[in-house]
């Protein structure tokens, strides 16, 4: 084809640009940006828990591009910076391509047969010599539901240990505890559809703009269109989310519970409580006993704005203002994430946010919900719903419940005695047991605990000494450093399966290309390992991903999270379904516990009489307003360690950077870690921007660059936790919530000096 000079020049330039996204352009290139020869496949973003729909562009057997899925109701075609570059991660130089065994301290490439035979032999030896509880599985909120399901069956149903955990323990367990204790069932009552109907947003412990950018965009667009929409933030740190804030309360890290009680007190005292809703839908409790509404009011008397101000460091006027804004808004949506969950009283913090909704009746109606934001793409679907924690079984079942064990054992085709009634070791207990040698073999799938555990260096001992198998898509990671065997796992776009996001939506992802190198789908790795361990009868029946999904959804039938109607056939066509979805002709459920929720609709009329909501996870259908003490952090600041250290995310990176660290653009955006210091503190300490400083806690110290910036409140410092080179988790504390067992990443005491 003859091109004129001008066309040639423009086409060359555009082709260079297009090469970056792998699309070949021709003259008239803007029209053919996404050339006709590119085939688009429906999928879901691999990063956070928002669940954005992405379209994967495939050409000649290669993933060449990603674009937002216009038909997806969550992101409506938009993407954040991480999803935008997902296609580049597939071909990262750090992809693990072959199974390897560490022999005499050196990695040696081996065949799949050798690797799996070796793991099966070692696991069986450990099981025989020390019993099933000497083995453990540690999974991920990034694994597909089908993958977690297979691991659950192998470890709990066949090997016979409940030592099965996943990293959602580290991020969402307190939200689970909060929902169970307040509303009776896990996961939110509403969905994202509430965003565009809300008059007020209460963002607590959430840097929504960076951690859930597409949700932030929806909030921002909604506020731009409706300037009367108000946004109240409670967070110790100023973040990009502040661009839309009408009011920001800056508590000392870990001291915000008193603020939430004080808000409840003002709401009741100034007449914003919905007395009718309270009468019909709410019970009151403290940690020991049931309370009356009057007794709850008495409990709140302590929480004057002045008291809360003294505890939290926020002015009383701002607390009053926040309470009035919440009370006066016709609808309100609270959102929170790790700032509340990663606390030694994370469950209580969750309860106190939900209290505000129950007291005002701002729940169960469009635009109102107590809505936890999830950090990982399938923490809800695979681990919370799939039962991938040490006390759970699939579909919100519990190992301690004999009926639940029997139901699951029947479907799994295993003797019910195989499933132990006692919960296994939760994450911190599991890695402690590894340190002690009580657990002698662990299978780690799709996660990087050597970097992501709190007080991380404490747990390297166990990883070093025990038999460690890591199934991963990337190599090396901080965890593969300690592995004995690494198994290459298929990555996003190389496998099919289902992700379940924050809003109870299960979405199907297509397999678009074959896995890189010799990588295999995690579910098949587990199946083949199980067969080699002697569980042929239990595992050989699974031939397709759909086989696994069908078995899983059969276990959800009749439960509060019924997915019976979410078959592959249907999920392949639609942009996900929000459970309960009990039949193939059911559209999915917008609001739980109220009309339109099939579980609510099926209740006897006498139960529903006079009620617009029935919290069916509670014996009398009433939710609980909790009178919890206002405990502070486990390790408050003191003269020796006078600064409160908090850790968190930046927009451009995710978790331990095994994915985002492979994208040059994202590395350029934020090339390294830093510690944010308030200018007041920096001045006192004689520290200038970009100085090298030493941050020290009782657990470790880290040399890092100072960023003097008016983001953290004076007296607090912040480190983004993504980098292995500047590993923030050698500083964080591994104290955990006694209820949820979730560690307090979000606050510990630190000191800082110039290096």
């Amino acid at each position, binding site marked *: 084809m003859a091109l004129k000079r001008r066309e040639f020049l423009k086409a060359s*330039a555009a082709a260079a640009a297009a090469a970056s996204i792998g699309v070949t352009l021709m003259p008239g290139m803007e029209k053919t940006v996404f050339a006709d020869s590119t085939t688009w496949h429906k999928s879901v973003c691999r990063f956070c828990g928002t669940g954005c729909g992405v379209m994967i562009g495939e050409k000649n057997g290669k993933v060449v591009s990603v674009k937002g899925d216009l038909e997806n109701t969550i992101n409506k075609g938009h993407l954040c910076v991480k999803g935008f570059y997902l296609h580049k991660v597939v071909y990262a130089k750090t992809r693990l391509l072959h199974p390897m065994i560490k022999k005499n301290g050196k990695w040696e490439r081996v065949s799949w047969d050798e690797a799996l035979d070796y793991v099966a032999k070692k696991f069986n030896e450990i099981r025989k010599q020390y019993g099933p509880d000497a083995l453990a599985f540690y999974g991920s909120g990034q694994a597909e539901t089908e993958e977690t399901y297979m691991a659950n069956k192998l470890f709990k149903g066949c090997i016979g240990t409940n030592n099965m955990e996943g990293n959602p323990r580290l991020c969402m367990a307190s939200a689970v505890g909060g929902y169970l204790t307040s509303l009776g069932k896990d996961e939110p009552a509403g969905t994202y559809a509430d965003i565009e109907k809300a008059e007020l947003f209460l963002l607590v412990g959430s840097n929504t703009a960076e951690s859930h950018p597409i949700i932030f965009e929806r909030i921002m667009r909604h506020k731009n269109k409706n300037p009367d929409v108000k946004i109240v933030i409670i967070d110790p740190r100023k973040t990009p989310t502040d661009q839309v804030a009408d009011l920001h309360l800056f508590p000392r890290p870990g001291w915000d519970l008193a603020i939430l009680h004080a808000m409840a007190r003002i709401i009741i005292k100034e007449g914003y409580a919905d007395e009718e809703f309270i009468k019909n839908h709410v019970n009151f409790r403290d940690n020991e006993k049931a309370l009356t509404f009057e007794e709850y009011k008495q409990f709140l008397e302590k929480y004057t704005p002045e008291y809360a101000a003294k505890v939290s460091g926020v002015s009383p006027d701002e607390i009053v203002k926040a309470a009035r804004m919440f009370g006066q808004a016709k609808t309100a949506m609270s959102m929170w994430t790790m700032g509340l969950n990663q606390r030694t009283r994370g469950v209580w913090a969750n309860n106190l946010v939900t209290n505000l909704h129950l007291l005002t009746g701002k729940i169960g109606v469009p635009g109102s919900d107590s809505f936890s934001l999830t950090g990982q793409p399938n923490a809800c679907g695979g681990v919370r719903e799939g039962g991938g924690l040490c006390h759970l079984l699939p579909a919100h079942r519990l190992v301690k419940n004999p009926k639940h064990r029997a139901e699951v054992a029947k479907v799994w085709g295993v003797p019910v005695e195989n499933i132990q009634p006692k919960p296994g070791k939760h994450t911190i207990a599991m890695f402690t047991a590894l340190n002690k040698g009580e657990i002698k073999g662990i299978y780690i799938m799709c996660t990087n605990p050597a970097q992501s555990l709190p007080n991380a260096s404490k747990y390297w001992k166990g990883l070093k000494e025990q038999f460690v198998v890591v199934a991963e898509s990337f190599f090396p990671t901080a965890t593969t450093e300690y592995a004995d065997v690494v198994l290459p796992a298929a990555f996003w776009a190389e496998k099919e399966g289902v992700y379940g996001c924050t809003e109870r939506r299960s979405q199907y992802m297509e397999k678009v290309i074959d896995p890189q190198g010799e990588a295999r789908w995690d579910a098949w790795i587990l199946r083949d390992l199980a067969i080699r361990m002697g569980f042929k009868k239990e595992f050989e029946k699974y031939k397709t991903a759909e086989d696994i999904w069908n078995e899983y959804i059969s276990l959800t039938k009749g439960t509060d999270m019924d997915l019976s109607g979410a078959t592959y056939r249907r999920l392949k066509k639609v942009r996900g379904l929000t459970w309960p979805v009990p039949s193939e002709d059911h559209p999915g459920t917008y609001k739980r516990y109220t009309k339109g929720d099939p579980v609510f609709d099926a209740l006897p009329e006498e139960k529903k009489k006079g009620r617009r909501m029935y919290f069916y996870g509670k014996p009398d259908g009433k939710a609980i307003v909790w009178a919890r003490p206002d405990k502070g952090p486990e390790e408050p600041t003191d003269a020796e360690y006078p600064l409160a250290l908090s850790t968190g995310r930046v927009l451009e990176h995710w978790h331990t950077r095994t994915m985002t660290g492979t994208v040059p653009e994202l590395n350029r*955006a934020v090339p390294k870690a830093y510690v944010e210091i308030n200018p007041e503190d920096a001045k006192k300490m004689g520290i200038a921007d970009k100085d090298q400083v030493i941050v020290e806690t009782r657990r470790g110290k880290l040399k890092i660059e100072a960023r003097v910036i008016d983001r953290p409140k004076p007296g607090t410092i912040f480190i983004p936790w993504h980098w292995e080179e500047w590993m923030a988790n050698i500083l964080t504390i591994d104290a955990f919530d006694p209820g949820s067992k979730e560690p307090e990443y979000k606050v510990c005491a630190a000191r800082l000096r110039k290096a």
Partner: protein
Amino acid sequence: MSNKQVLLVLFVVLMFGIIWLWAGDQAQSAKHPEVDFSISCVECHTEVTPQAVKDWRGSMHGKMNFGCYMCHGDGQVEFYPKPGSERCIACHSGQEVDFSKTPVKNCFDCHKGHTLKFHTGNE
């Protein structure tokens, strides 16, 4: 003006146009200056191109913190001083335009500068 003069003016305008196009397209393949790449784009450009950063910060992209690299590349592996529309469509898939039917050929013909605000008329 005689026909000759008109032709001369047209010729000069055409030559300038060609030179401009050439320069513009040369810039597409230009290399980013060798700088301290251990700092981020925004950190450096706040000093060297403050107006561009200010405009960007006020834009929707700035509010979302969608940085320089999304349009311009990382500066080392890839660099596009005058980016085309390719990347826009990945996020704005609802705004795919058939440029053969429009007087413009690029998203940035209308969404100019770093504000990316929609411009009309003779701007």
